[in-house]
């Protein structure tokens, strides 16, 4: 599709430059630190898993104990390596010892801890690379997927009901299945364990749940002749650990936003910006496509006003993602169709916004979210808004289309709600297939003017953020009308200053050999 809006390449370049400045500032401030969740992720990558009698995950136990004994600043890997070098049979035995402070105290740095870890690191890197290859193999085994990819959510709270509904959705035509997380899991500073059958507004993200759903979707692949992409949420207090779990269980996409947790879950900004980096390094290596969450700005604050903020945030998310080693094809940028349907010419603004995103982020997939805020108990009106949403998505060449539910205002989707949404999207996608090639926009018309305004607004905002620095900008409520002071929010206590000789073998490995391997 040739560009239709005549947006200024210089201005876009300048936005990227400013985003770079913002990202540099973040790196400078966060680089000297690690977090409990980052270290737990390292332990998981090294094979530490499971829970104790009180259902507390072993990685949490180990990190607590290392912290209590003042050892964490060196990085958990150093001590696991040392324990192994000192003769422990494997990660499990080593973890058991390390998780008891009295024993942990006794373990001192072993000169050959790196050698001891090397095989574990190598096998994990191999396993992750293997999963990425397996994904590519499966996708290549079928005709290419038609875009926009139809993305359906399941959210029963029970992984087994989720599987029934995910298979139904896949058979009906869904190309991506996201298992919505139980509300507030992002506030837990640990990852639950095992298969779960009760959650609220969603189902807990556990490695076993990942495995079960992955297996279910793989099972029906031959029947439906497509490989269905599995999606989960890599955000909240456990971002890096969930990335590790996803890499192990061959998830395909992760909602993984640098700022969502800060703005919408009141998680400490410092903590989040440290965690997002390692979580994204893992996703990069695993060949996962991340989805950012700018759509949430539009559901929370006024969609017309927030448009420039969304674009500015996309530039920042893009830069932070690239810095973490993700490639452009892995960076799914989020936005949404959230303008009040009663607004005169509102549809023109939606078209402008969607087309602009498409023309600015040419090499990245766009994650287009459905109307939610203006959905009401009038389910027919809702189905209508979703129809206009699909049409706009097709007309502007979006990549990942999250299916709107006619009952959005009422409940998490029923089996039939989801079928209706898939049928709607399939029908309109076919009925309007080449629309984007067919239409152009009046050169100085409302659509073009709006796109230019939004880009200019984003540039101005980025100027301001680059000036203040991201932390102060967040504190001043630059996004979604929400103020988040640097020290406020959950999880601040989980931030740890690194020792000069801190080590994280995976980061080091990926710094040597960029994730590009995954593509």
């Amino acid at each position, binding site marked *: 599709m040739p560009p239709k809006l005549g947006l200024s390449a210089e201005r876009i370049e300048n936005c990227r430059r400013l985003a770079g400045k913002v990202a540099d500032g973040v790196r400078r401030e966060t680089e000297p630190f690690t977090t409990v969740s980052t270290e737990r992720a390292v332990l998981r990558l090294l094979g530490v898993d499971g829970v104790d009698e009180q259902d507390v995950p072993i990685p949490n136990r180990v990190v607590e104990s290392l912290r209590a004994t003042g050892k964490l600043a060196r990085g958990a890997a150093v001590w696991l390596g040392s324990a192994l070098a000192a003769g422990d049979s494997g990660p499990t035995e080593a973890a058991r010892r390390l998780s008891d402070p009295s024993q942990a105290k006794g373990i001192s740095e072993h000169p050959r801890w790196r050698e001891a870890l090397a095989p574990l690191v190598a096998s994990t890197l191999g396993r992750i690379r293997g999963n990425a290859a397996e994904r590519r193999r499966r996708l290549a085994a079928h005709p290419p997927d038609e875009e926009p990819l139809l993305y359906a959510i399941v959210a029963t709270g029970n992984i087994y*009901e989720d599987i029934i509904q995910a298979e139904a959705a896949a058979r009906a035509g869904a190309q991506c299945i996201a298992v919505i997380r139980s509300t507030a899991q992002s506030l837990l500073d640990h990852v639950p364990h095992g298969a779960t059958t009760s959650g609220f507004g969603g189902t807990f993200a556990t490695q076993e749940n990942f495995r079960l759903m992955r297996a279910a979707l793989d099972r029906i692949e031959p029947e439906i002749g497509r490989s269905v992409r599995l999606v989960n949420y890599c955000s909240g207090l456990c971002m890096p650990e969930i990335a590790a779990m996803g890499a192990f269980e061959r998830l395909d996409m992760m909602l993984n936003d640098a700022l969502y947790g800060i703005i919408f879950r009141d998680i400490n900004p410092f903590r989040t910006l440290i965690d997002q980096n390692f979580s994204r390094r893992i996703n990069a290596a695993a060949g996962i496509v991340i989805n950012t969450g700018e759509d949430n700005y539009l559901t929370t604050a006024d969609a017309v006003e927030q448009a420039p903020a969304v674009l500015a945030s996309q530039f920042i998310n893009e830069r932070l993602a690239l810095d973490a080693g993700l490639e452009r094809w892995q960076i799914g940028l989020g936005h949404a169709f959230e303008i009040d349907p009663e607004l005169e010419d509102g549809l023109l603004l939606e078209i402008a916004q969607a087309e602009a995103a498409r023309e600015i982020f040419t090499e990245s997939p766009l994650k287009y979210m459905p109307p939610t805020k203006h959905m009401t*108990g009038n389910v027919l009106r809702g189905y209508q808004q979703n129809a206009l949403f699909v049409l706009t998505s097709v007309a502007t060449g979006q990549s990942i289309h999250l299916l709107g539910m006619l009952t959005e205002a009422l409940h998490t989707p029923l089996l039939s709600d989801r079928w209706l949404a898939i049928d709607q999207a399939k029908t309109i996608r076919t009925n309007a297939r080449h629309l984007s090639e067919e239409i152009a926009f009046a050169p100085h018309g409302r659509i073009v003017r709006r796109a230019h305004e939004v880009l200019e607004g984003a540039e101005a905002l980025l100027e301001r953020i680059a000036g203040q620095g991201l932390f102060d900008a967040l504190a001043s409520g630059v996004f979604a009308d929400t103020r988040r002071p640097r020290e406020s929010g959950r999880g601040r206590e989980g931030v740890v200053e690194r020792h000069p000789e801190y080590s994280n073998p995976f980061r080091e490995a990926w710094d040597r050999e960029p994730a590009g391997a995954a593509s």
Partner: protein
Amino acid sequence: MSAPRRDPSRLRPYGDKWNDGVVQVSFTLPLPHSGLAIEAAKRYAGKMGIRDPYVTLAQPVAPEFTFFIVYGKAVHEVDATAISAEEAAAPDLGREEIDAEIAKRFGRRLVVLGCALESDAHTVGIDAIFNPKGFAGDYGLERYAGFDARNLGAQVPVERLVRLARDAKADAILVSATVTQNEIHVRHLTDLVDMLEAERLRDDLILVAGGARLDHALAKELGYDAGFGPGTTPGRVAAFLLEEMTRRRAGPGPS
């Protein structure tokens, strides 16, 4: 895996969990929009057997009328094991087979008249059954060697149809009824049966009705031998005609 299984003798609707009973209802009450109207809607849903009804829309559609959408959980259960859905018996045969069987069993082509009655001008339905091109990729009766199929079109008066049936010594009459407002279809379909009986022709003919709002049960009730609803393919009708002719041939019955 640990998902509960269903009990076919005690089925309840599935929203997003087994037997959660989730249903959606909508209706208009002749009340101006108000808290009272909403409460009335809840009670009405309650009478339909819906537990904690959730009124998601209470929309005034006229000064004295409010339209409601309600979600809730229905308490009823239905026993699927006790159901035998009655459908017109029709063997699964292809066009060639049917033509061959007709030749074999009757040694002649069966004369079939079709039309829409009286005021009903909808021909697309009856055409779908008769025209060679047929419906949903299945050829129409005029394509069959075994049938002398004559499509009389729409708006055919009952009395004319009966006359033509006698003159043609028809084996079967196929009528299409599309307009059903105020039960006008029932009226015309009944008129036909009455007239055929008055003329002592009823037993000599297979009488079939079809249309968007028809089904086998209703047709039977109106004194027809079979009824076919939406999505009917000509093949199924042909197979039924063969079957029914054979049955009659076997059984006593006049002629």
